[in-house]
């Protein structure tokens, strides 16, 4: 689960890392009121879960109330596309914060290094820009060091910030920030914490001017405050799926997908794309084969107006295909799909499952024996690519 910039900063503040004070606003009037309270200059920053906001015009400095109104009006409601084509993300909230007098811009992060199975601290004196580009151009400019599982103290942190070439008079404070970022990782179950830029102000104070924080969704049971943030989902289908307890990811195609198991489901999306189609979603039905789960899944998929055909790809292991077939029959009595449903059942009790479906003779239901044939068929029925 990713946090918005201001949510990350609130987490930083909780752990004693200096951040500019600010307020969140959902309307232009609220943004102007916040700016008036904070004073000028102030920054109006789009709150969306993607980098590259500045380049996209999502961060503006206001010198007075008039500019605050103009910038908030332009930013609220805009769509921001990420540097890797993510999104677009609609801006529903802005964060208004006091302007900072920047002397230096650095980069600091603590991330989970999956390969090495350790937390990795990274620091650079070249902050305020795309750190992947900095590392590609000048690898030595980014100091990377694993955090010893047995502990991480000020001395270890100081050697990292010193090696990164940060200003001499900022080393102690920057080291303290790095120690606290590692503390945020451990105590808040964050798998990624990035501060870009970490600034030194004209008054030589070290302040986190931005935040990018990812919290481990599996650890939310021990973080009540963060769990509440996780409950807010923007996309209507994703919200509906969440309420029904389904693992669903919205995509932008027209072929609705339901498969069992995360790996098989990803693979199903891939073969549909190979067949020339565009998947509308990822939906892992899991081991559940109950009619209720199937009804829930079909309701979520159907509520996406783009979807024009659905593929149901099941390989029964422990899950039995006859139970799934009964679930499909029951579901079709409860919900009017109004579009073709292609079903591929293989694995445990698949023959019995296919017999149940054939007997029910459901309108608009198409059976295919293999995953590849099913993918081709659903793409054809969906009317080609979206």
């Amino acid at each position, binding site marked *: 689960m*990713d946090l918005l910039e201001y949510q990350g900063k609130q987490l930083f503040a909780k752990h004693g890392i200096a951040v500019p004070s600010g307020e969140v606003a959902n309307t232009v009037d609220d943004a102007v009121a916040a700016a008036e309270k904070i004073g000028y200059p102030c920054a109006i920053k789009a709150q969306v*879960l*993607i980098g590259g906001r500045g380049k996209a015009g999502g961060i503006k400095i206001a010198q007075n109330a008039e500019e605050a109104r103009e910038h908030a009006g332009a930013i609220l409601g805009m769509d921001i596309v*990420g540097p*890797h*084509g*993510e999104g677009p993300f609609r801006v529903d909230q802005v964060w208004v914060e006091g302007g900072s007098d920047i002397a230096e811009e650095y980069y600091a992060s603590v991330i*989970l290094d*999956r*390969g090495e*199975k*350790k*937390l990795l601290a990274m620091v650079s004196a070249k902050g305020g820009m795309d750190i*992947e580009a900095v590392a590609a151009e000048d690898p030595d400019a980014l100091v990377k060091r694993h955090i010893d*599982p047995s502990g991480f103290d000020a001395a270890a942190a100081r050697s990292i910030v010193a090696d990164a070439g940060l200003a001499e008079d900022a080393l102690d404070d920057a080291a303290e920030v790095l120690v606290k970022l590692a503390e945020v*990782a*451990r105590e808040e*179950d964050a*798998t*990624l914490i990035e501060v870009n830029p970490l600034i030194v102000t004209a008054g030589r104070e070290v302040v986190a001017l931005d935040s990018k924080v990812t919290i*481990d*969704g*599996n*650890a939310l*049971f*021990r973080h009540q405050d963060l769990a509440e943030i996780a409950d807010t989902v923007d996309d209507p289908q994703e919200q509906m799926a969440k309420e029904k307890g389904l*693992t669903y*990811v919205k*995509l932008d195609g027209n072929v609705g997908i339901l*498969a*069992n*198991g*995360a*790996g*098989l*489901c*990803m*693979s199903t*999306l*891939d*073969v*549909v*794309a*190979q067949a020339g189609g565009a*998947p509308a979603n*990822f939906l*892992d039905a899991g081991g559940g084969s109950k009619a209720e789960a199937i009804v829930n899944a079909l309701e979520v998929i159907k509520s996406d107006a783009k979807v024009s055909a659905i593929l149901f790809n099941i*390989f029964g*292991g*422990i899950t039995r295909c006859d139970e799934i077939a009964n679930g499909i029959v029951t579901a079709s009595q409860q919900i009017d799909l109004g579009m073709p449903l292609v079903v591929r059942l*293989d*694995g*445990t009790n698949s023959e019995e499952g296919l017999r149940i479906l054939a007997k029910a003779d459901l309108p608009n239901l198409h059976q295919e024996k*293999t*995953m*590849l044939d099913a993918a081709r068929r659903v793409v054809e029925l969906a009317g080609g690519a979206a």
Partner: protein
Amino acid sequence: MSIIIDEGTKLAVSGLTGREGSFHGLRNKAYGTDLVAGVTPGKGGQDVEGTPVFDTIAEAVTEAGANTSMIFVPARFAAAAIDEAIESGVETVIAITEGIPVLDMLSTYWKAKEKGVRLIGPNCPGVLSPGKANVGIIPAQFFDPGPIGVVSKSGTLTYQIGNELKQAGTGNSSIVGIGGDPIVGSDFIDILRLYEADPDTELIVMVGEIGGDAEERAAEFIASDISKPVVAYIAGFTAPPGKQMGHAGAIISGSSGTAQAKKDALEAKGVRVGESPTETAAIAAEMLRSL
């Protein structure tokens, strides 16, 4: 032969008294696995259909001779159960549980390393050595004994490929589900090394997916340390960046962890990568015939 589990496996199941644990533990026993103990704190002295239950895994080791532990404990207690298993004296711990906080696994991973205990999972379907033993939730009916070693991040995708291999008339030395979490006890490399040393494994099928760099690391390792042919499959070419695709570890971060990068890394080292599960099984069967 086979890897990780075989006729000598003596299994203790943590969570055997629970609904899932008893269902799968007893299925494993019915397959022929030597189920020697269940473990549930506070339920020592009871039994599950004749299998004695102990309060601790250490007792299952000393009293019942367990050498392999399977963890079927709810997520928030599972890391502690794995830690207990690591200290208990078993050689192998297979953790099925999904949803364990990753930072808990970080410390558990290093505990297993220090003790020299082999940890498989978590969030995995377990290990099957056809005809010998089954520890976990893999449906054994799709796998016959044979010369192909399978290692995979995914459950159902592996059953799909296994079933196609069976229809092609071949079978498996072992099937190892390493799990779909960001931190797992054994990576592709650890299992590839075991298959390389296993005389009954002639060919290896490796099933990866988006997220992390375990496949890229495996590509390097295959080039330097594996003499047996390897066929790979990668899932998630259509996955968008920044979205978790079911498995906690299946996420593209920025531009890293993409399926294309993994495919490219493997092909650069001469590993054939199938376009679909079906093609992957077909390539494996064909390569086996030409060995």
